[in-house]
């Protein structure tokens, strides 16, 4: 029923090749510049990479994504945790959270650009403001679901703050943190795109916009894929190992001989 056994190694290599094949076929059938073939996109990618353009813009975007990701996660987790844990804090802040959550990125970005000028801090701040409520909403649910019996145990055994944080709360919040990290990375990168589009002169968002001006779909896809590959790398090298480590206690018996 619940086949939680470790999946075979080949499993990860099915979907993408299939996708690429479908894409190939479609682009062959349509034969339009609006759906370039994988080969064409790859070529654009290689061109941009060897001209150094790609690295420059990718670097700038990554820098913005990572900086705002870290800021947003820290603030969002703190906020969400407090709101989930203390009903009064939640009651006070909830209307603001709903407000911030649903304030269009466009609005924050415009207002910040106008007030602070078209500067880097405005860009970063706009992204952070857009992302924090999302993290908070997810983590709040986690904080609400914390196990009260373990909490009592921790009180009796006088767990200090670091122990509560690290040994009691973190493992329970872990799935929520993973969900917001994954969703968050994606969201932040999308907001960074808008930010770059409206008021920055570099970064992938800027390039995408340029490509969009002339409907250069192949460049659009190339730049998007470049970033997605980076995220896929983060997924494989950071998130999944982290997840395996953190889930070790869950199904320790399944690796039977």
């Amino acid at each position: 029923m619940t086949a939680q056994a470790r999946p075979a190694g080949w499993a990860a290599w099915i979907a993408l090749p299939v996708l690429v094949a479908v894409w190939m076929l479609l682009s062959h059938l349509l034969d339009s510049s609006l759906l370039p073939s994988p080969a064409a996109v790859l070529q654009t990618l290689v061109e941009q990479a060897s001209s150094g353009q790609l690295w420059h813009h990718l670097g700038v975007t990554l820098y913005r994504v990572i900086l705002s990701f870290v800021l947003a996660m820290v603030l969002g987790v703190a906020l969400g945790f407090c709101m989930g844990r203390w009903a009064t804090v939640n009651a006070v802040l909830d209307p603001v959270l709903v407000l911030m959550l649903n304030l269009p990125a466009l609005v924050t970005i415009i207002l910040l650009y106008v007030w602070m000028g078209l500067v880097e801090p405005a860009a970063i701040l706009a992204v952070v403001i857009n992302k924090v409520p999302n993290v908070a909403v997810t983590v709040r649910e986690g904080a609400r679901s914390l196990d009260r019996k373990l909490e009592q145990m921790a009180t009796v055994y006088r767990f200090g703050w670091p122990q509560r944080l690290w040994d009691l709360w973190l493992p329970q919040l872990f799935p929520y943190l993973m969900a917001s990290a994954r969703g968050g990375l994606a969201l932040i990168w999308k907001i960074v795109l808008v930010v770059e589009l409206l008021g920055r002169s570099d970064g992938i968002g800027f390039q995408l916009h340029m490509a969009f001006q002339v409907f250069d779909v192949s460049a659009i896809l190339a730049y998007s894929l470049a970033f997605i590959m980076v995220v896929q790398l983060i997924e494989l090298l950071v998130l999944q190992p982290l997840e395996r480590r953190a889930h070790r206690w869950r199904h320790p018996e399944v690796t039977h001989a």
Partner: protein
Amino acid sequence: MLELSFDGRGFRQPVLGAIHLRIERGDRVCLLGPSGVGKTTLLNILAGLDPVVLPSAFTQGSDLRVGYLFQEPRLLPWRTLYQNLVLVGAKREEAARLLSQVGLTGYGNHYPDQLSLGMARRAALARCLAVAPDLLLLDEPFASLDAERAGELQALITGLLDQNPAMAMVCVTHDEADAASLAAQRWWLEGAPARLRVEGGGESAGRRSTAAGPDSQNAGPLWAEARGGEGA
């Protein structure tokens, strides 16, 4: 060393009635009563966990070091047994010693989910002993254990209490034999809301089972005191 006075108000459903009790150092108490009467509730109150009972209800003793064996193991499932013990302050060697004393030699690196329930409860007992408590609260320490193992653990606890005459204990059990061999005092919980009846005495369980040490009022770590006495 601990004195509690609680008028029973605050519970949505009146679980416990008014309760006045006193526990002195060295007291060994067995708490008996039918299922669902409020034994666990009382232990929670003694451990300072019940939100209904204000700290002001404690005339004394709200800052005691408590070792509480909950009715369920309540180990952190994402930490191995060693880690669970180290977290409450045990040294690694001490953890290993305690685990072997409860019959879990070699299970230090197992996660709680890899244990049977009886084993997990024994691990929880080890944790409870690891904190060198002033007050030992045990909620059915021998449930889910075969007679032989139960006997061993009973000997372990009795030995520990004898070594530390200042340590107080309240132990919930349903077994008359356990009660007889572990404790001098018996508290009965009866009725709804439940009232505390002290076997052979008034409302207070003030008599100690073993004459021991000076009756210093909450002064100094009791465990250390007992250790010193042991060495002498």
